[in-house]
């Protein structure tokens, strides 16, 4: 038999952390601070709208780009939240989660050998998606001393003639870092000077604390060279509905839509109807969830610092990223030993890139009661292992 496999796919390494995830998922009595999704249920009025759409028999395909009313609501939302103007007819399309849009944007923009700058630690899919699109990932390592923000100098040191795209993963999973308007200014300048494009993954844009999210697309001349990716998973606690969207200049969106049309057809219809209600009537829910996350964030940071962890204060997403360097264990060893000894699961920083070594991602998408319980175990653990 001939080799049935594509060499390109085989070359992509399965996430090194897969093994650890598998062990955790089989340990039924373990508790976890390891998830990357909200603990809240989708607000009932949104679920109810989904149920109603099913009762009405709205079970057909929608147009490729998505329901007209959903695209219009997205356009209104982008305007009211981020002062970004997109034409719902041609500059917005609805995807199967933000993930599909990441893949679509890269495939629509990359030719073989084009380089894509990816700041790490970051979400796991950018690097493999670049490879799938025949691009070359170029990693920039975000530094703890910069609060894991991206700095212009870091870009200077990796940019080449082949660099085409900069991925902007902020607010950041796993570090919780955000980029303020001031932080973004020098990045936008750099992008313009080097004639780059930006894929800005803003899936956590509703989860910033004490300051509003700013999109790099809102800077002068950036709109036509930025694809903004957002979705409903984190802001409305709708991960399982699989619904995201991309906004950008028609030139690029047209091509992304072509990939979507042939690979996906359209995003799930039920989810789209529910999402219309989320955007029309969900602002209060988002605010309440944000407030709850903020309380947990403060609680968790204080508890970790009281235990002696070195932990920078993150202002976005729902993660903290404490350093464990003092324990002389690798992130993966620490996580594995913590799981074995205390049955507490956290995610080693290395799951999000090599430069995550020496850190853990701890999620606060948990109730205060759950956090307390888990922190108790963490405390026992570090008391035993502290040198």
């Amino acid at each position, binding site marked *: 038999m001939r080799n049935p496999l594509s060499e390109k796919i085989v070359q992509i390494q399965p996430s090194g952390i897969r093994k650890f995830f598998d062990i955790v*998922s089989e340990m039924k009595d373990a508790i976890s601070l*390891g998830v990357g999704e909200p603990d809240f249920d989708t607000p009932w009025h949104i679920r109810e709208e989904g149920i109603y759409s099913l009762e009405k028999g709205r079970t057909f395909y929608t147009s490729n780009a998505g329901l007209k009313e959903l695209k219009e609501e997205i356009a209104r939302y982008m305007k009211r939240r981020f002062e970004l103007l997109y034409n719902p007819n041609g500059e917005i399309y609805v995807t199967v989660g933000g993930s599909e849009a990441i893949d679509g944007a890269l495939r629509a923009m990359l030719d073989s050998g084009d380089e894509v700058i990816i700041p790490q630690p970051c979400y796991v899919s950018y690097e493999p998606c670049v490879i799938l699109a025949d691009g070359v990932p170029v990693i920039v390592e975000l530094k703890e001393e910069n609060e894991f923000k991206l700095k212009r100098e870091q870009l200077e040191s990796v940019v080449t003639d082949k660099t085409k795209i900069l991925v902007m993963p902020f607010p950041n999973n796993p570090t919780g870092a955000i980029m303020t308007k001031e932080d973004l200014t020098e990045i936008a300048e750099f992008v313009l000077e080097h004639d780059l494009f930006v894929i800005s993954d803003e899936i956590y844009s509703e989860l910033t604390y004490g300051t509003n999210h700013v999109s790099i697309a809102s800077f002068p001349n950036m709109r036509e060279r930025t694809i903004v990716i957002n979705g409903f998973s984190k802001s409305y606690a709708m991960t399982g509905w699989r619904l995201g969207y991309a906004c950008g200049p028609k030139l690029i969106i047209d091509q992304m839509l072509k990939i979507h049309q042939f690979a996906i057809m359209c995003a799930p219809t039920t989810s789209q109807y529910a999402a219309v209600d989320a955007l029309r009537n969900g602002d209060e829910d988002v605010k309440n969830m944000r407030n709850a996350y903020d*309380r947990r964030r*403060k609680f968790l940071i204080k508890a970790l610092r009281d235990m002696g962890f070195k932990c920078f204060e993150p202002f976005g997403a729902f993660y903290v990223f404490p350093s464990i360097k003092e324990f002389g264990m690798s992130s993966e060893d620490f996580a594995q030993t913590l799981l074995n000894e205390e049955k507490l*699961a956290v*995610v080693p920083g290395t799951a999000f890139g090599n430069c995550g070594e020496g850190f853990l991602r701890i999620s606060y998408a948990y109730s205060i009661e759950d956090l307390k319980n888990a922190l108790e175990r963490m405390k026992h653990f570090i008391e035993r292992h502290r040198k």
Partner: protein
Amino acid sequence: MNKEVIDKGILDVIGKNSRFSSEDLAAMLGTDEKTIENEIKSMEDNKIICGYPALINWDNTDNEMVTALIEVNVTPQRDMGFNKVAERIYKFEEVESVYLMSGDFDLTVIIQGRSMKEVAMFVSEKLSTLEYVNSTATYFVMKKYKEHGIIMEKEHDDKERMLVTP
């Protein structure tokens, strides 16, 4: 951080669960215990926080307890409106809640008693005989589904969030 934000934060948290310690509240709201204690005290004094009762579903105990909702029509009194009659009603220990209503009747009175008979006796002997009370209509509660934002029944929960996800 300003007082309004802290007060609202305290109310949001203890409105759902009043068992958190001042230490926990201070950590959650990014302030110190002393501030939390002062703010709670001041909100108690101002009757913003009126008490800390636990929400009990007596149906799940061996103690019999019945709840009735009573619509009451009253004649308002000069200078005092409905307040004086309401006061004479809410001072009874059996009375859980009293609300002044818009619409066809004036007061909603919620009563808890050990039996339907006990509640009926209270209505006929105490409530309807009060001066200025013109009429009452009593409705017994058959089942409580939700109270104070809390679902009273055990929900069948087979949600399974994975333990770790990227």
